């Protein structure tokens, strides 16, 4: 749209400077809006003004974004909300990345972090309220300047106009006058019809800098006097350092420090190549691995064995056991899913500077509050002496919610007494991840003589993410991620039972795009398909029959099916599969059209049609891009990805043995947005869950082979086809 806003400007907004600032604090009764003067009294932290929106006499509107830009478009969509409600001209809007601090915490999460497909959902109303307050103040300032009634003035594209005479003043010209006014606490929001940008495909603000190599990611940080660091780490979980050659490393030209930290032995050097050379010279010997017999096969055995344990009841409606016992037709299936790596294209990295009176951290993070707390702890400084600088994220997907790399960089800067840029290699990144949990699930289900699903009994064995990350949210022993998409599934089945068996293993697990839905949608939507087959019904009709009271689910299913030509004849050898899933407040249905090479079992996905209902839409282009991205990442996992383990550690190392989906494997993807006008839903993650089951269901339709283990590698498909 405009070149003028393509470059992010980190304006130093001063609270003392001229212009209008809208600041905000969260109070128990809700969001309280403040002027600059009030904000100054409110905060002791002069470097971290509470400012969210600043309008300066140069007619620039600066919007502070408290969420991380990791590709999902928040640097565009959040400022769009402000610009719209403020009635600013999009061309005058600049974006500032928020520093870490209490004032920029998400009002719902009470934490400054980006995840859970929640940025727009949580910030939409607060941002509109702040922007509306600023607009009302600007209008009042104009009315006073002209000595006319407020009702005769109107905001229009960055100006306030006097309706009768047509005279106008820019927001910049009014900003100083406006800054002296009382901030209205209950400003009137625009009506739906008055919205100018919300709902429009406003081009992303980061498109230019990301197409010219100018965008600055964490790895692109340079600070004066910095050292590079590299860490030698154990290859086996739980092993300890037996010995290492400190002198040899110190003898490498350019090496300045060798430090032992909890995760390994680190070398800090003047250049990255010296740091690597020094790390290799360490020749670290490790001892006492705790789980040396652990490998992929042993892990799978442990999951399978756990299926026989009694779990904790997560859902119990009706009497599933009795219904299963009496049913006309009863089926059972076991599904096995692997651990997955995040594999963000930008490997983990962090630059930290710990000094006597100040600490700075430059990091591509999804978790500013976590980084800030950690830096306060490790530096021993006061919160106001610690500054977190969020760069662009070269992918997040949940991995950058973790702060492990930040802790290392902080410790190393302390040890070396200089700023340290810590870069992980791809191998370190892949082998030191917090993986998407592997799972093993057994489902039993039944249909009655009329072909209606009457019972569903579900048992999932799954490691717990929440017990490590948010233990308070584990209620009655149930990890909410492990059962998401199961305990809240919308299918109207009268007898429904779900049980969770927690399994504790040395492999660390974490949030991976769409979290529990990434595995549970596969098992639930595959099994619904299996029930439809048992009932001799069309998979779409069968689903619609179970969703009579769920119009949003029905509508996305009908839309995706309709656009994909469900039920219409296909090219020879092709077949379609359908799946739907509700996650993060959004309904998504996907239809995959596939063919299977009968000789080698290779699946070709030709086309994916997606329908999404996320309530209302801020930017349809971004919604569409996120669906495309979610489908591609989900398909990558469905067809190719599986972490391998050997000798008590991680075996997969890099893209040669943990490959991602490539262009040649990517289908045509089309997304249809269903605007229900309902409550806002998230958009970063919900595209992922339905794709794996949609493909597996299509493979079943094509071959009669039911794939219950992921990934659907050719040999897995071939083995399943042989059983048919």
């Amino acid at each position, binding site marked *: 749209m405009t070149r003028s806003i393509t470059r992010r400007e980190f304006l130093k907004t001063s609270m003392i400077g001229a212009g209008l600032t809208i600041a905000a604090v969260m109070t128990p009764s809700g969001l309280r809006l403040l002027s600059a003067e009030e904000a100054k009294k409110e905060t002791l932290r002069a470097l971290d003004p509470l400012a969210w929106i600043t309008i300066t006499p140069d007619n620039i509107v600066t919007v502070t974004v408290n969420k991380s830009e990791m590709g999902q478009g928040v640097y565009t969509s959040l400022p769009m909300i402000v610009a719209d409600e403020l009635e600013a001209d999009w061309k005058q809007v600049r974006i500032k990345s928020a520093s870490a601090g209490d004032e920029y915490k998400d009002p719902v999460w009470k934490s400054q972090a980006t995840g859970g497909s929640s940025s727009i959902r949580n910030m939409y109303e607060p941002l509109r309220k702040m922007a509306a307050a600023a607009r009302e103040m600007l209008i009042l300032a104009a009315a006073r300047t002209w000595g006319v009634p407020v009702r005769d003035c109107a905001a229009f594209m960055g100006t306030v106009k006097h309706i009768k005479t047509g005279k106008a003043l820019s927001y910049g010209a009014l900003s100083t006058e406006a800054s002296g006014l009382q901030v209205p606490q209950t400003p009137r929001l625009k009506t739906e019809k008055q919205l100018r940008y919300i709902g429009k495909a406003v081009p992303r603000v980061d498109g230019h800098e990301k197409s010219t190599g100018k965008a600055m*990611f964490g790895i692109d940080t340079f600070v004066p006097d910095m050292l590079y660091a590299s860490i030698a780490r154990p290859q086996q979980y739980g092993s300890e350092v037996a010995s290492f050659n400190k002198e040899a490393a110190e003898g490498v030209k350019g090496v300045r420090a060798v430090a032992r930290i909890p995760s390994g032995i680190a070398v800090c050097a003047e250049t990255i190549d010296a740091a690597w050379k020094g790390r290799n010279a360490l020749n670290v010997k490790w001892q006492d691995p705790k789980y040396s017999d652990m490998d992929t096969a042993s892990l799978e055995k442990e999951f399978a064995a756990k299926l026989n344990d009694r779990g904790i009841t997560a859902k119990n409606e009706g009497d599933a056991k009795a219904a299963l016992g009496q049913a006309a037709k009863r089926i059972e299936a076991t599904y096995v899913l692997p651990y997955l790596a995040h594999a963000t294209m930008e490997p983990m990295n962090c630059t930290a500077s710990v000094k006597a009176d100040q600490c700075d951290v430059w990091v591509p993070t999804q978790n500013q509050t976590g980084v800030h707390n950690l830096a306060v702890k490790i530096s021993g400084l006061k919160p106001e002496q610690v500054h977190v600088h969020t760069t662009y*994220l070269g992918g997040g997907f949940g991995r950058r919610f973790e702060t492990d790399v930040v802790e290392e960089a902080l410790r190393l800067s302390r040890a070396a007494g200089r700023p340290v840029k810590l870069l992980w290699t791809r191998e370190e990144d892949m082998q030191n991840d917090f993986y998407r949990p592997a799972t093993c699930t057994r489902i039993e289900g039944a249909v009655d003589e009329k072909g209606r699903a009457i019972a569903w009994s579900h048992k999932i064995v799954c490691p717990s993410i929440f017990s490590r990350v948010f233990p308070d949210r584990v209620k009655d022993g149930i990890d909410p991620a492990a059962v998401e998409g199961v305990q809240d599934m919308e299918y109207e089945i009268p007898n429904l039972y779900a049980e969770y068996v927690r399994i504790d293993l040395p492999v660390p697990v974490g949030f991976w795009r769409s979290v529990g839905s990434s595995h549970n949608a596969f098992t639930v939507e595959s099994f619904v398909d299996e029930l439809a087959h048992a009932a001799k019904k069309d998979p779409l009709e069968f689903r619609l029959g179970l969703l009579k009271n769920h119009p949003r689910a029905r509508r996305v299913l009908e839309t995706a099916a309709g656009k994909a030509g469900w039920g219409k004849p296909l090219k020879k050898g092709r077949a379609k599969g359908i799946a739907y899933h509700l996650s993060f407040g959004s309904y998504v249905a996907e239809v995959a059209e596939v063919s299977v090479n009968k000789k080698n079992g290779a699946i070709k996905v030709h086309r994916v049609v997606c329908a999404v209902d996320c309530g209302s839409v801020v930017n349809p282009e971004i919604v569409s891009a996120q669906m495309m*991205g979610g489908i591609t990442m989900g398909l990558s996992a469905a067809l190719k990805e599986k972490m391998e383990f050997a000798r008590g550690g991680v075996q997969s190392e890099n893209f040669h043995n943990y490959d991602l989906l490539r262009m040649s494997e990517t289908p045509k993807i089309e997304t249809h947005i269903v605007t229900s006008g309902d409550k806002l839903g998230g958009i970063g993650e919900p595209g992922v869950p339905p794709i794996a089951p949609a493909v597996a269901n299509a493979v079943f339709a094509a071959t009669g082979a039911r794939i219950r283990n992921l990934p659907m590698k050719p040999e897995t498909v071939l083995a399943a086809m042989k059983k048919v």
Partner: protein
Amino acid sequence: MISLDINGKNYQADVGPEVPLLWVIRERLKLTGTKFGCGIGTCGSCTVHIDGKAQRSCQVPVGEAQGKKITTIEGLADTHPVIKAWIKEEVPQCGYCQSGQIMQAAALLAEDPRPSDEKIINAMDGNLCRCGTYPRIKLAIRTAVKEGRKP
């Protein structure tokens, strides 16, 4: 001292000849548009042009790049048809792999201004994108082809 011709400028770096070109470009010369992704030539994030050919700079010892013409993303003009097409089709999401994708695509179009779909896919298949922008990359390449045809 290693001497390099990058984007038409001469650069000097005090570095061993075995150090991969990528690290010299990025961390010594601070041309940070070229990205590190895997270090083993499997992801394409570090793609640059060496004497006009797309190469993985993580696989080229800097000593071997001496005396050759190196182009990085910083060396492409903002008006380059591939960059224009990338912006128009809103390809980037996180954006990290896009320098490599653009350099790969630019080399392809320099070699064949009207590549078939198959040729596009073959040329781009070594470049990974975790955000899943492949469909838009394909679209942008076709757009750049169309723009290139205009007089």
